[in-house]
């Protein structure tokens, strides 16, 4: 019978352990969301744990949309406090939040992330304009004044200044937060600059339909959507040295020995050229704070203030060293965080 007793007592112990002592509070801040923001959030969390008496926040990745959905699940210690996001929150998310009792959300924009095009370090140099990318990747392009299905196979075919190299671009997948800025700042710009937009509208499409036509990328394998991390893009680039990859600025800065960055409109991407707006492709990075948790979870307010402080997010702070473009309006953000201002309706 000893076996039975042993088994029964083990079960009993585990049952007690499982249900017994649940503190209804949580000691550490829980953060989830964008994998682009993840490295910045871990740098801040680490420094926060070192310099404050609070435990180091727990930071998860998983994607902007998933993070915001998780934040909007409700209020309480078993829900997360902060959602990192590489795109702005949508009205749909806010509605879900409100329906689940998360009425007050603080929107914190802490900086900008540059999007760069880069090729293998041994390959030729590229100097792009949005038109080049559009001509290379769109399903329909303007050739000799007429809309035709994209016939280009090499970069030099439409821009003699570019190398005669087969076209292959590793674009961010549609699940990526990067995709939105890629679509609007590169593909759409190129669509307008090459005259394809005007041609679509001349063919009888209204503006929305024309934009949609612009955003249709070729599907013959010369544009490859990468849904994974930048490390996957880098691995693909190692395997096929003809490829052009799309990366975040910070990823490029950590791998300058493997990547050769392309200029856009003649501007070399750097934190400085992005901050001044010379380099055109960047997007704001956000995190969203559940305000109902501010006085409940110890350290939450301090973490948020520490994140946007000049020490961390300022132009000389560790985040900028890692590749974040500091927000010129950081002082206003610090003020807002101190006063705990909830975000208004989206405009």
């Amino acid at each position, binding site marked *: 019978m000893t076996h039975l007793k042993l088994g029964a007592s*083990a079960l009993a112990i585990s049952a007690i352990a*499982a249900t017994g002592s649940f503190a209804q509070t949580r000691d550490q801040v829980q953060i989830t969301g964008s994998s682009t923001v993840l490295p910045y959030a871990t740098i801040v969390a680490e420094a926060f744990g070192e310099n404050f008496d609070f435990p180091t926040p727990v930071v998860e990745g998983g994607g902007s949309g998933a993070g915001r959905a998780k934040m909007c699940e409700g209020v309480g210690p078993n829900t997360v406090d902060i959602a990192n996001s590489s795109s702005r929150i949508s009205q749909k998310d806010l509605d879900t939040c409100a329906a689940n009792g998360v009425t007050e959300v603080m929107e914190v924009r802490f900086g900008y992330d540059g999007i760069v095009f880069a090729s293998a370090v041994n390959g030729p140099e590229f100097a792009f304009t949005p038109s080049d990318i559009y001509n290379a990747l769109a399903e329909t392009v303007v050739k000799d004044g007429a809309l035709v299905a994209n016939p280009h196979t090499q970069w030099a075919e439409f821009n003699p200044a570019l190398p005669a190299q087969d076209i292959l671009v590793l674009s961010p997948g549609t699940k990526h937060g990067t995709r939105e800025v890629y679509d609007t700042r590169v593909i759409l710009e190129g669509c307008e600059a090459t005259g394809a937009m005007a041609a679509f509208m001349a063919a009888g499409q209204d503006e929305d339909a024309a934009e949609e036509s612009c955003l249709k990328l070729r599907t013959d394998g010369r544009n490859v959507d990468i849904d994974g991390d930048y490390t996957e893009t880098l691995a693909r680039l190692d395997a096929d040295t003809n490829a052009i990859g799309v990366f975040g600025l910070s990823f490029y800065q950590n791998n300058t020995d493997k990547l050769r960055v392309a200029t856009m409109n003649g501007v070399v991407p750097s934190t400085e050229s992005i901050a001044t707006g010379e380099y055109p492709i960047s997007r704001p990075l956000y995190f969203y704070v559940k305000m109902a948790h501010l006085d409940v979870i110890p350290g939450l307010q301090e973490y948020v203030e520490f994140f946007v402080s000049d020490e961390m997010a300022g132009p000389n702070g560790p985040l900028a060293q890692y590749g974040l473009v500091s927000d010129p309006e950081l002082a206003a953000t610090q003020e807002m965080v101190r006063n705990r201002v909830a975000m208004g309706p989206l405009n």
Partner: protein
Amino acid sequence: MSDATANGIPASGAPAKSSLLTQDALMRKRNAAEARFKAYGIAAIALSLSVLFIMLWTIFTDGVSAFRQASLTFPVTLDAERLDPEGNRNPEEMARVTTIGYTNLLNDALVAHLAAEGISTEGVDDGDIADFISRGTPAELRDQVLADPALLGQTITVSGFASGRIDGYLKGRVTRETAAVDTNISVEQLDLADRMVEAGILTSGFNWRFLTNPDASDQRPEMSGLGVAIIGSAYMMLLVAIFTLPMGIAASIYLEEFAPKNRWTDLIEVNISNLAAVPSIVYGILGLAVFINFAGFPQSSSLVGALVISLMTLPTIIIAARAAIRAVPPSIRDAALGVGASKMQTVFHHVLPLAAPGILTGTILGLATALGETAPLLLIGMVAFVQNYPAGPFDGGMLDPATALPVQVYSWASRSDPAFIERSAGAIIVLLAFLVVMNIIAIVLRRRFERRW
């Protein structure tokens, strides 16, 4: 009668048409088929072994370097003015000097030490020298000083890790060719590193802290370690064993020894086999819905991880335990029943002890599979950056956030700094070592206790 002779039986005197010693065409064909089949088998084994070998080889060549680490050793004068501006030696007031203050102190100390040793720093400015020091070292020094304010004013020898790229240079990952195009490190810095190695300031040794340190951010790959992940995995395996073993044994004994054979038990049997084949991510979704959202267990905790993995492992353990119980010959049961033992006594005094080695082997192999699971942990918040060690097992440590070994492999593999590639492979080596140990325990148990009939 004469027909029989005509139908193949050789007439006496004529030579035999076939013999065992000479092969006819059919025999040759059959032998050739056998030889071919053997060749296929050997080819299949050779192919799988070579794939395994290539995999292990790449992991080991990539990952072994994670167990070595470059360190800097130099004297630092703990300037009381800078570290305790108030002068009260009160740790609470001293805590206002952040790690940034300590970073500057360390940078100045290293520059001064290089000058004192007469090491040329040509082409390298003070900021580039500061890049040699890991960003984790100031935090360690700060902790040390806050714990013992009496150190202020003294000159102590600090031994801290070198930064990831200098470490990579000593390991051969960073070369002069890559440094020439890498904006994060210059060839002059590598020259200085060479001189520092000669002077004994920069040394390289076995990196125990790879096994004990918690995770670190992207800016200090050299400080990252598997400490939290190992504790998390250990807690989970312990809890999984506690949850699944009694339940699995009870279920399999009932099904094998007591349950009537009818449509219901058949249905249960089919379902157990089906559950063993359900993709593990499904259990993660279930865990999120039931244990976190409904029961309110804390996120990212090893308890929830263990519950989810228990659900996943339970069918495997039940199947293994039933096979072990079935392997006990009926004669044992008959003999026990024959001398008047009850059914219960038969099972617990005779069948279960004889089946125990088989059950344990199956359980350990099930745990080994569970040890390598990441997918279900993704949904319950264990794929995360966790820097604080969970508390001890009796202080509610199983409710604290933790990660697990395979999770660490996954999250390091997606980091941007190239130093994390070696650490990811290093984590795989540690995971494989754990799996090998578990499998060896399973084999030893089987060898020592298994009875054959």
